[in-house]
């Protein structure tokens, strides 16, 4: 820490070193690429073992099954990026699937009305979570555990042991889950549209970038004037609304809904998000990675079935994948930080040789790259304290 002893002068005004930005970008993109790569390897290997795996029906099933999970993962990404978590999504899906099913059963209601009702219920649940987390400043993990219990209880209370069956549902609802547009089923289309929309917003709007700023360093975001409460609230709202949409899609896809539909899905969703490279401590990750993570987990499930592996292995494999994902992320972040530090050190060394001391080591590194650089830098420092 000899740097501290020097008098800090203004950092040299020059173009931010693109080398740093490129390196970090590459690492982050490498994440999506590596999941896509893993997917390809998995699919190719399975197809060699059993050619029927890649039948049109098989692929369609994987995409249909992944759609709902990916939709939830996209919503969860908004929340996790702000260093929060929403564990109530599984119970919201169950509640919405049942209530909208009851609303539509035995009638010929317009499917848009059914969707609207689902979105409303989801928004309401998201609002409750968001208000509790953002305005009462209580830990997100605990609050959403609590709302998970409550919503699950309400779901069971409403269901009273009944179930919705596909034969009661209007054909327009079932069509949503099983028909296709130009040969592509509606579900993946809906998921991809939502993903692209939210992905674009998070990447290209300044308010979207603020989500990352909050997760990366809440205190700095607050001092920079980011409206933290409003952003966190909207993250939960989006997560809730998408869970509502997922609930309607669940109803449309499966037709048969029992009270504990989507029970335990919150962990699947969090797994997909984490495998997809969204850091659970906030500030890093994309919705595309999360959606790919969901696709990977779904594909693994199908592969195990095709290869006739004992399905009991699926959870264990998912767990190992999760641990691998977070470990690899961590090691990469450490490496990036080391590289950046080495660069700034060597730059400092050069400057010192030119006779202008500069006490702004990390400033150079964090100033140039995207928000993720700052996140990666903040995340090393041996400061791995959980702030959940």
């Amino acid at each position, binding site marked *: 820490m000899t740097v501290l002893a020097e008098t800090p002068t203004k950092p040299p005004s020059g173009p931010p070193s693109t080398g740093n930005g490129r390196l970090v970008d590459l690492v982050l993109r490498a994440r999506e690429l590596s999941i896509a790569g893993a997917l390809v390897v998995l699919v190719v290997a399975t197809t060699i073992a059993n050619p029927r795996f890649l039948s049109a029906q098989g692929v369609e099933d994987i995409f249909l099954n992944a759609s709902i999970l990916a939709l939830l993962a996209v919503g969860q990404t908004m929340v996790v990026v702000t260093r929060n978590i929403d564990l109530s999504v599984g119970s919201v899906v169950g509640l919405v699937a049942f209530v909208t099913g009851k609303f539509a059963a035995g009638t010929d209601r317009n499917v848009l009305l059914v969707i609207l009702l689902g979105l409303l219920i989801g928004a309401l649940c998201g609002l409750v979570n968001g208000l509790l987390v953002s305005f009462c400043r209580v830990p997100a993990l605990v609050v959403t555990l609590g*709302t998970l219990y*409550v919503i699950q209880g309400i779901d069971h209370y409403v269901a009273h042991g009944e179930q919705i069956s596909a034969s009661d549902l209007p054909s327009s609802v079932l069509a949503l889950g099983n028909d296709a547009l130009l040969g592509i089923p509606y579900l993946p289309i809906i998921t991809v549209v939502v993903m692209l929309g939210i992905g674009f917003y998070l990447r290209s709007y300044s308010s979207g970038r603020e989500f990352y700023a909050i997760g990366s360093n809440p205190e700095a975001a607050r001092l920079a004037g980011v409206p933290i409460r409003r952003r966190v609230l909207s993250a939960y709202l989006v997560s809730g609304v998408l869970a509502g949409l997922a609930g309607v899609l669940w109803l449309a896809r499966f037709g048969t809904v029992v009270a504990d539909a989507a029970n335990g899905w919150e962990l699947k969703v969090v797994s997909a998000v984490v495998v997809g490279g969204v850091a659970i401590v906030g500030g890093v990750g994309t919705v595309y990675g999360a959606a790919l993570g969901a696709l990977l987990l779904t594909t693994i499930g199908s592969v195990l079935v095709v290869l006739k592996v004992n399905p009991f292995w699926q959870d264990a494999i998912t*767990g190992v994948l999760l641990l691998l994902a977070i470990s690899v992320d961590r090691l990469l972040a450490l490496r990036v930080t080391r590289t950046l530090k080495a660069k700034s050190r060597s730059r400092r060394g050069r400057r010192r040789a030119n006779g202008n001391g500069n006490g702004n080591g990390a400033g150079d590194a964090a100033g140039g790259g995207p928000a993720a650089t700052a996140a990666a830098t903040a995340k090393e420092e041996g400061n791995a304290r959980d702030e959940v």
Partner: protein
Amino acid sequence: MKFDARGLIRWETAVTALLVLVFVGGAGVSPDFANGDNLSFALGDLSEIALIALPMTLLVVCGQVDLSVASVLGLCSALTGWLWNAGWAIETIIPLVLVVGVVCGLINGLLVTRLGLPSLAVTIGTMTLYRGLAYVVLGTEAIAQFPQRYTDLATTSVPGTPIPYPIALFALLAIVTAVVLHATGLGRSLFAIGSQEDAAYFAGIRVKRIKLVLFVVSGVVAGFAGIVFTLRYGSARADNGLGLELTVIAAVLLGGIDFDGGKGTLGGVIAAVLLIGLLRNLLMLNDVSTEIQSIVTGLLLIVSVLTPRLIAVVRESRAKGGGARPASPAPAASS
């Protein structure tokens, strides 16, 4: 933060008062509630939650969390059944299963300390992994027919008292834990790590070693709870204890341990565990449906984290004479 304790009722006192209130109210509402047999049953029903709450308290004080405990319980339960089926003696099974608990905790601890990963992410991963392994070991079958002399150990009470054996053991462990947490340098270190980890590290506290030991203790206690659970129900299944980690965390938070670490007392947690047990028992006695129980648990969780925050906000605005500013949670002094 000396004035925390002054002028305002302490959180632990509030929980204890609530406990007494529920007990008295329960005795008034249900004639079957306050007799020895029922209380003994209610206590016994808390065995695993109470045992696991002890190491969980230490972890949360330290600013960590272990979500994998219920899965370790399930894995150890499944292993107990599987080994018993394979013809091993219970005396051999118990140490073997405890070793598995140690290994589970070690994996958690090493991932957290060696790689510097957040414990929340790590234990969500191992929670999935260990539960998956439990299913690999036992699938969906249930192993029963454990010999009576062992199941009696888990279900009967210490002669002359209404206290079941597992709870008696819990009482002993609770005393040890309370002494460690509130009367030793090690306990002080835990509070220090929880309130300001970097400062604790630079003050010479062996942060990594302490965290590792805590995760191992958490693993071994969860493993032991798996054996207790198996013998108490006389059934070993892979899904034993599913969702139990949430109840444990609910109890710890209700007991006034701050989720940001560095605050709280073990007494509060013990009161909270008893409170949850009595409430459950009361709801069960009055045939309240499980969905309402689930709602009550959820609300209890939310209220338990909300109340201290609201108190803090009120106190802040009183102190400042203005509205509550979105301040960062102030690290509490561990005095």
